């Protein structure tokens, strides 16, 4: 059953989720970007803002309306919550004979409600869940009404409309008629929450408006990638001269791995206190762009930026399929936007394929 809710209904939604004990997180503005953080009400959302994105470019720009979700994705992804950057897996007391006692397991993370999850992000969450199963959050998805400058979800088959994996899905409507939100439930939990909100059943014109918004988003993709044969293409071209070209440009800064919603590599460390009596095993985000990442006795395997960029890109688009059954890329475009030199994964694929671009 598709319902229509107004902004007050959304505030009611956030309130109901908080009352059910969820930590409610979603998009908000901080440090001139749209990031994910705790939300108390819809006033915390980037109301009336949009983002201007391109290779190595991100700016917030004022809209001429009060859309709550009128932007694409920012430097944060939901992996910030699913796979936190620094986790203590366990802590134990270290005996003088090297044994462990009093082992405390990892503290349970909060139960999250994610507000404003885009379709590409739903796919990313599903991908991560295969590698790092975790408790499912309550998901309020948002179907995009406009695309970002570096988006290519259509190429990757991951959007712009959410088809599964959510409890509630929203399409924001404001162009034709009053500012309102189409809402559907995707689970029993979602149905039960939706029933508590002030709403009316959706009418034909609401559904039509939503359809137009989705189509508009799909037609505005900033990038595209022919992903049909990319695995074979990359494995067959591991010594292609294009790698030298991108290797010259890549700074090995690792931004792409930080903003990518599916990059999951972590480093495992044992940290002892000064007295050496307590040991923590910690898991922290790592990046294949660091020199140490491939370190073995004798040195690193991937000493050149070329080889590290190739590792990242072939893992994302090719090896991932062998390892986990799907592509690792969801077409969100973050790696393009947040690369300081604007390296564009879609352009690199096209270049290796030999397309004229």
């Amino acid at each position, binding site marked *: 059953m598709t319902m229509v809710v107004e902004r007050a209904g959304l505030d009611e939604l956030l309130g109901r989720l908080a009352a059910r004990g969820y930590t409610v997180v979603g998009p908000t503005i901080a440090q001139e970007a749209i990031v994910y953080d705790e939300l108390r009400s819809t006033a915390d959302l980037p109301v009336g803002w949009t983002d201007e994105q391109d290779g190595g470019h991100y700016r917030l720009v004022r809209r001429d309306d009060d859309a709550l979700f009128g932007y694409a994705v920012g430097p944060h992804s939901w992996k910030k919550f699913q796979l936190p950057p620094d986790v203590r897996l366990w802590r134990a007391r270290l005996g003088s004979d090297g044994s462990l006692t009093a082992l405390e397991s990892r503290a349970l993370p909060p139960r999250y409600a994610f507000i404003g999850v885009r379709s590409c992000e739903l796919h990313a969450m599903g991908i991560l869940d295969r590698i790092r199963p975790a408790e499912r959050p309550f998901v309020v998805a948002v179907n995009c009404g406009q695309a970002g400058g570096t988006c290519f979800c259509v190429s990757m088959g991951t959007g712009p409309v959410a088809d599964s994996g959510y409890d509630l899905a929203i399409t924001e409507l404001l162009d034709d008629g009053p500012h309102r939100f189409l809402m559907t439930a995707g689970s029993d939990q979602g149905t039960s929450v939706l029933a508590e909100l002030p709403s009316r059943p959706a009418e034909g014109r609401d559904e039509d408006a939503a359809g137009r918004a989705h189509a508009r988003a799909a037609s505005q993709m900033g990038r595209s990638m022919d992903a049909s044969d990319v695995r074979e293409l990359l494995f067959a071209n591991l010594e292609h001269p294009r790698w030298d070209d991108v290797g010259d440009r890549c700074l090995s800064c690792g931004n792409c791995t930080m903003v990518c919603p599916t990059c999951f590599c972590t480093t495992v460390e044992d940290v002892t206190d000064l007295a050496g009596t307590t040991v923590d095993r910690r898991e922290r985000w790592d990046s294949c762009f660091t020199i140490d990442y491939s370190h073995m*006795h004798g040195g690193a*395997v991937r000493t050149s930026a070329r080889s590290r960029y190739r590792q990242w890109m072939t893992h994302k688009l090719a090896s991932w399929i062998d390892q986990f059954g799907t592509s690792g890329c969801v077409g969100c475009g973050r790696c393009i936007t947040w690369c300081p030199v604007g390296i564009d994964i879609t352009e690199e694929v096209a270049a290796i394929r030999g397309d004229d671009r």
Partner: protein
Amino acid sequence: MATIADHLVGGADVRFATGDHLFRTGDVADHFYLIRHGTVALDLVAGGRPHVIETLHDGEIAGFSWLFDPHRWLFDGRAVDDTEATMFLAADQRLDGEVMRHFAAIAVSRLQAARLQLLDVYGSAGR
């Protein structure tokens, strides 16, 4: 498949007891050996102590220095076991294409092996 022995002229059977030297570093190299049975160690003498850089076994040729200037042995050749060999004189050999090709092949394979030994793969360099 023709072996090197098919292309060698002459040859006298010789025997060495354990510890005997077949040749010494710096001696005139006007002959070489085909090992029939036994083991010959090639020793590099450095810092007073000999270092075994390779052992040669049944069917292997010991000696290439006869082919090129300055025609002097580069290593010591020492019998590790009682060894039977055939000694060939440099002066008797036909240095035709076939012979050179066989010797070149053996030299290349020794070179490759020596390079691999140099890699010191079991040490820290071996990834």
